[in-house]
């Protein structure tokens, strides 16, 4: 691809972010370990009774992955903000929303994708019915990019702050409520033997909408934060 074009710029952002996360590839395991530990805590709190755990397994897996995602959000722009790369991105002649979309994509690949891969293990630990597992994975595949996109908007607003962890959770969790409802709703329906396609389609629709709008909102928020 010709250097200087939009495609080249997007590719460069993707390659740079992938390289950076490859150099610190241990970090990609952190969200997975966190979700694993959280899931382990539930049987201690609720008792090891398999039927009871199986009933709420999908919900627990979802909440664990969601919280792991919130904790991982902070790293989306953190190092780039510290070393000034983010400002260069804002100043670049290419459309900022597209470049940010590339960054969000890489962030999703490095933090959420390992969580989806680990989801069957988490589900098995909680005795989730095997028939529900494909629905859970499908819901996760649709929901996690949505969470990353919505989260990116909030991260962009808090990007300059030093201790933004708790605040970020407060900003982002109300936005995650509908996603959680539809994703967990699909699994619940599947578990009860009811049709589960509708909530999945809603998630898909929301994902398409967020794919278009969230990078724009993220860019606008970033321009407010970086002045």
């Amino acid at each position, binding site marked *: 691809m010709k250097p200087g074009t939009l495609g080249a710029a997007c590719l460069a952002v993707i390659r740079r972010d992938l390289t950076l996360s490859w150099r610190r590839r241990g970090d990609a395991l952190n969200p997975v370990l966190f979700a694993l530990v959280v899931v382990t805590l539930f049987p201690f709190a609720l008792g090891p009774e398999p039927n009871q755990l199986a009933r709420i397994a999908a919900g627990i897996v979802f909440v664990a992955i969601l919280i792991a995602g919130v904790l991982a959000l902070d790293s989306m722009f953190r190092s780039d903000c510290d070393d000034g790369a983010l400002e260069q991105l804002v100043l670049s002649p290419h459309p900022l929303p597209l470049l940010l979309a590339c960054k969000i994509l890489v962030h999703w690949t490095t933090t959420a994708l390992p969580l989806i891969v680990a989801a069957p293990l988490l589900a098995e630990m909680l005795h989730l019915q095997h028939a529900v597992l494909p629905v859970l994975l499908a819901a996760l595949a649709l929901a996690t990019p949505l969470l990353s996109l919505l989260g990116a*908007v*909030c991260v962009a*607003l*808090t990007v*300059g*702050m030093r201790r*933004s962890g708790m*605040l970020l959770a*407060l*900003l982002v*969790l*109300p*936005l995650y*409520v*509908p996603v959680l*409802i*539809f994703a967990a*709703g699909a699994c619940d329906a599947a578990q009860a033997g009811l049709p589960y396609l509708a909530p999945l389609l809603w998630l898909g629709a929301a994902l398409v909408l967020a794919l278009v709008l969230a990078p724009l*909102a993220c860019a*606008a*928020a970033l321009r*407010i*934060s970086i*002045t």
Partner: protein
Amino acid sequence: MNKLTLWFHKFGSPPVFHRIGGLLAPWLFAAALVLMAVGLYGGLVLAPADYQQSDAYRIIFIHVPCAWMSLFIYFFMAANAFIALVWRIKISEILAMTSAPIGAAFTAITLATGALWGKPMWGTWWTWDARLTAELVLLFLYLGVIGLYHAIEDRRQAARAAGFLALVGVVNVPIVHFSVKWWNTLHQGSTVRLLGPSAIDSSMLWPLLVMALATKLWFFASLFVRARNDLVELEAGKDWARKVALGEGDGA
């Protein structure tokens, strides 16, 4: 420029707003208090007891106006945030940010009165019903805006960032509303309608509407008082603000 636009532009200037707000606030407070007294007398004394809920229903004269205000203020805040982001009007930034705590207070009152009513009627303080949950999420949205506003050092940048969050929240409010409705509902539907006949007796309706007006006036009175304070703080370096602070006239 015609008179109305001129007045509008003047209203956007901090010293003029400070003066007009100071003139209006006491009157608005007084009118709100009078209307509240009338509305509460009508609701608590004059209105007949409900045939099903007897006297317990009377909390709606506080609960329902506050619930209306919680949404009204959110949209008021978002509208001001939009104006502030697009046209960079200082007054709008301040109005958006000062309405957030008032809106959060109304939302908290709605939740508290709802819980007080729910205990005798539903037998529980809290239930994971759609409307209750949506109201709770609304409270979180308010708290997020307030938290973000106070987390950023630069006041104007903070107002812009928090205002942007409020706008994102506006998209979220209807989505939350419908998704939780789909999820679980127990709360009764609304009985007061803008279009078509209301399913509530007029002896109960008028105190409700009076209270709704009273809470609105209270909101604007409280908004002006808070906005004046923030305005003086924000404009601390300016001449008019120094005059106001030293008590040398109203600055305008």
